[in-house]
């Protein structure tokens, strides 16, 4: 009897370790292996096999010799820093107005301010050309009434404007959260000591939320230097590293040069992380809030009205591209004319004839990858939170690594890992699912981890002591309690995968074109109508998924992005 018990005991305690083993295998095969292959490739000449004397720096030397490479490097940094700068310029005041003034319609502003995060940035990017381009409607009026036109939108201005308008919510939401949760008594005591409103902002309020601003700025920078779609559409001759990588892969299928560029792109992100860590460490304060009382809200009329004006403008301009997409999709075209012409459903009829497959492909790939990421991300988060073992940080790091990597780099890594060697998956849907899965698993991992850490360990212990095995406890207690977090993560995962372009553009094959590839192809060939019809369908799909999840979870949209 005692022996039997012991055997069962061993069997049950074995399961978590089996899960752990499986998880590590997946991380090794799909993240560590492809990334090390990229690293290795970048130090080898094309065609060479790996050996010590074959190692070379040729692939990197282009950054010193070729003016294209040099300018792409500088352009990427320029775009990154300008996007951070403008995102702060828009995001911080907006956060302040919403958190600290008596503005009306706060919920609406908050929701609309979150929207750009869900909508794929490249879908709206081309609208800037329609609106502010040489043939655009704004220039049309400017020429007619004032006799001058705007400078060319193609190149740096277009790229920075389009990216900033879709990335500023990161700074906005993180700053907003920090402003809401900071200790009101600190500001009150500064006021008592004679600080004016402006003194207060300068000396207390802003310094206290600096770590959050830095965190938001970091995400903006990472997204900006890794974005492919926007510079591909609006860059023209203005190359950045992601478009250069694309050029190397599509033009020459040179994984070695592409690998070298990818490594440079990654180091940029790494450097940004180091800088922001430094800022956060220097400026991190633990505030103990012993009160549920909210921060002081200003009743000033001037502030209130400037808030409404400012937030409305920012939101209007950030959503304008997508509104343009939707409106234009119902017209024959909107280029070189004052107003869109000929309202009709013709574009939709056309795409349902020629572009049904990409829509179905996207749905299939996104749903499959989301399911895989959900199962594995949840198990990994369980292990990371509940199991004690040495080297846990390696697990955290590996899971979160794809989160900070530019999407196109993930694409290059997966392509390098599975286009030759033991496992060849090029041209299949599987290689795309793998890329999608590792790229978006961090969302699930984070969100599941957040909800798991909220669950008191003694709840699980209570289940064990009542006679439930590990499995029974996991499925009856832990999983149901984690479910809202997992669902939120899964919805974000699905919606962002529907609009995924950077990884897709490297991994897709003729038979597995996605909705985003179809859109960008139409846009490259200036077939605006069908592109915008597809864009509208994409926007509607993504928004319905998020709205449905909000309904199910009873959360606000801005809360769903807290962990991202």
């Amino acid at each position, binding site marked *: 009897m005692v022996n039997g018990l012991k055997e069962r*005991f061993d069997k049950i305690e074995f399961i978590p370790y089996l899960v752990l083993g499986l998880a590590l295998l997946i991380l090794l095969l799909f993240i560590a292996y492809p990334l090390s292959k990229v690293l290795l490739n970048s130090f080898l000449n094309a065609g060479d096999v790996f050996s010590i004397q074959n190692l070379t720096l040729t692939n990197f030397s282009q950054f010193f010799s070729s003016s294209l490479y040099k300018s792409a490097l500088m352009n990427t940094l320029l775009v990154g820093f300008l996007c951070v700068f403008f995102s702060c310029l828009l995001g911080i005041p907006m956060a302040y107005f919403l958190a600290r003034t008596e503005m009306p319609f706060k919920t609406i502003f908050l929701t609309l301010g979150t929207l750009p995060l869900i909508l794929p940035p490249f879908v709206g990017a081309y609208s800037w050309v329609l609106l502010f381009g040489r043939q655009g409607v704004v220039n049309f009026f400017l020429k007619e009434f004032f006799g001058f036109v705007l400078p060319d939108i193609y190149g740096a201005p277009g790229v920075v404007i389009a990216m900033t308008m879709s990335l500023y919510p990161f700074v906005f939401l993180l700053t907003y959260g920090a402003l809401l949760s900071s200790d009101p008594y600190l500001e009150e005591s500064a006021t008592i000591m004679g600080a004016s409103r402006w003194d207060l902002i300068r000396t207390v309020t802003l310094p206290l939320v600096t770590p959050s601003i830095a965190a938001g700025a970091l995400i903006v920078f990472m997204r900006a230097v890794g974005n492919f779609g926007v510079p591909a559409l609006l860059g023209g001759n203005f190359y950045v590293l992601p478009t250069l990588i694309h050029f190397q892969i599509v033009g020459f299928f040179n994984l070695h040069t592409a690998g070298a560029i990818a490594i440079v792109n990654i180091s940029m992100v790494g450097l940004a992380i180091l800088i922001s860590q430094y800022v956060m460490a220097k400026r991190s304060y633990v505030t103990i809030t012993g009160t549920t009382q909210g921060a002081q809200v200003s009743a000033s009329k001037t502030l209130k009205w400037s808030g409404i004006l400012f937030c409305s403008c920012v939101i209007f301009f950030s959503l304008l591209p997508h509104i343009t997409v939707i409106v234009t999709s119902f017209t024959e075209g909107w280029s070189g004319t004052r107003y869109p012409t000929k309202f009709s459903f013709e574009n939709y009829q056309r795409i349902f004839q020629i572009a049904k497959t990409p829509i179905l492909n996207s749905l299939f790939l996104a749903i499959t990858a989301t399911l895989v990421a959900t199962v594995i991300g949840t198990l990994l988060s369980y292990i990371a939170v509940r199991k004690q073992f040495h080297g846990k940080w390696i697990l955290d790091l590996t899971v979160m690594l794809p989160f900070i990597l530019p999407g196109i780099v993930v694409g290059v890594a997966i392509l390098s890992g599975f286009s030759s060697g033991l496992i060849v998956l090029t041209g299949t849907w599987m290689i795309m699912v793998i890329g999608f899965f590792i790229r978006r698993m961090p969302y699930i991992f984070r969100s599941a981890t957040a909800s798991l850490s909220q669950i008191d360990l003694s709840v699980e*212990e209570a289940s064990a*002591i*009542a006679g439930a095995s590990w499995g029974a406890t996991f499925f009856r*207690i832990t999983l149901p309690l984690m479910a809202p977090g997992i669902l939120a993560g899964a919805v974000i995962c699905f919606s962002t995968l529907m609009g995924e372009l950077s990884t897709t553009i490297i991994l897709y094959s003729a038979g597995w074109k996605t909705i985003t590839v179809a859109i960008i192809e139409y846009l490259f060939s200036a077939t605006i109508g069908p592109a915008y019809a597809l864009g509208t369908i994409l926007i509607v799909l993504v928004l319905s998924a998020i709205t449905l999840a909000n309904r199910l979870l009873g959360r606000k949209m801005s809360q769903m992005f807290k962990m991202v």
Partner: protein
Amino acid sequence: MNQKRPITLSIQNLSKVFHGKTERVMAVDDISFHVSEGDLFTLLGPSGCGKTTTLRCLAGFEKPSNGNIRFLGRDFTTIPPFRRNIGMVFQSYALFPHMSIFDNVAYGLRMRKIPRREIEQRVNRIIQLVELEETQKRKPSELSGGQQQRIALARALVYEPKLLLLDEPLSNLDAKLRIYMREEIRRIQQKAKVTTIYVTHDQEEALAISDQIAVMSDGKIDQIGSPDEIYEKPQTIHVADFIGQANFLTCSLVKKNEESVILRFPSNETVLLDQNKKRTSACDHSKGLLFIRPERLEVTPVLGKANSLKGQVKRVLYLGSQVRYYIQIFQQSAPQEVLVDKNRRIKDVKEGDEVALIFNEEDTGLFPLE
């Protein structure tokens, strides 16, 4: 009160070491104790004394570094928590927030694959025992703290475990409810006749509900005994100090023979103690502390009685149910303050008065120093 019942739980030389990043922490340091069937046995001590770690070793959530745990003749150490057939009430109650009260209570029975009809009967019976019949369909969050507490108890008892573990079950309740609930726990425990290990830092609570108490500090057990023994005859200074209020009077032993011992205080006053009634055997030390509870001291304005000490009333504190006198003794040599608790004001004694302190030697304890 304490008839000898068979021992069901025995802990032998139990130790638990936690390995921190740099240091090893000896959370439980070689403790042994035995619990009789049906007893409520309390582990009492300040936070960090190792009482909760001991309990978690019993539950199986911590693996002992050393020693063994035997329950009903079985070695517990290798059995996982879910096969130990133990009931446990957690400090936070740990009710499953996503389940109704009925499902919470039924959980252990479902895990034991009990037929549905029987589950219903047994859940109803236990919910009746804790007097919360009307709450069955509600969620835990809709219950008050005291109700959650009782449901947690019902959930732990419904599958009739042979051993019940209670981890600071009352610490989240307010003072009045705590007193009511500790009587409830005692009543239900007696009715279920279940051997119980109770962990608390509240000495009053421990005295009120336990059959046996083990007082712990720094991972070790200082003393095991009935509440009376722990309170009246503490064996160490720590126990005397931790349980209730205590006065420690510095003294030296000047003469010792078979029958008696003379204590000399810093003021040169002396007291004769009958050696036979003394509890502390180690009287051959020259210095010591005389222990006496504040409520066992008598205060009188009449000076010069035998076995009395002279002092001056410094402060009188009125606390409602009792009056506390702060009396300074040994004023010329090494002033020391003594507490005296009375349930009403003493006639003719005011602040500033010279008084005599009188005590019965049965009420005292003597702890050697060094």
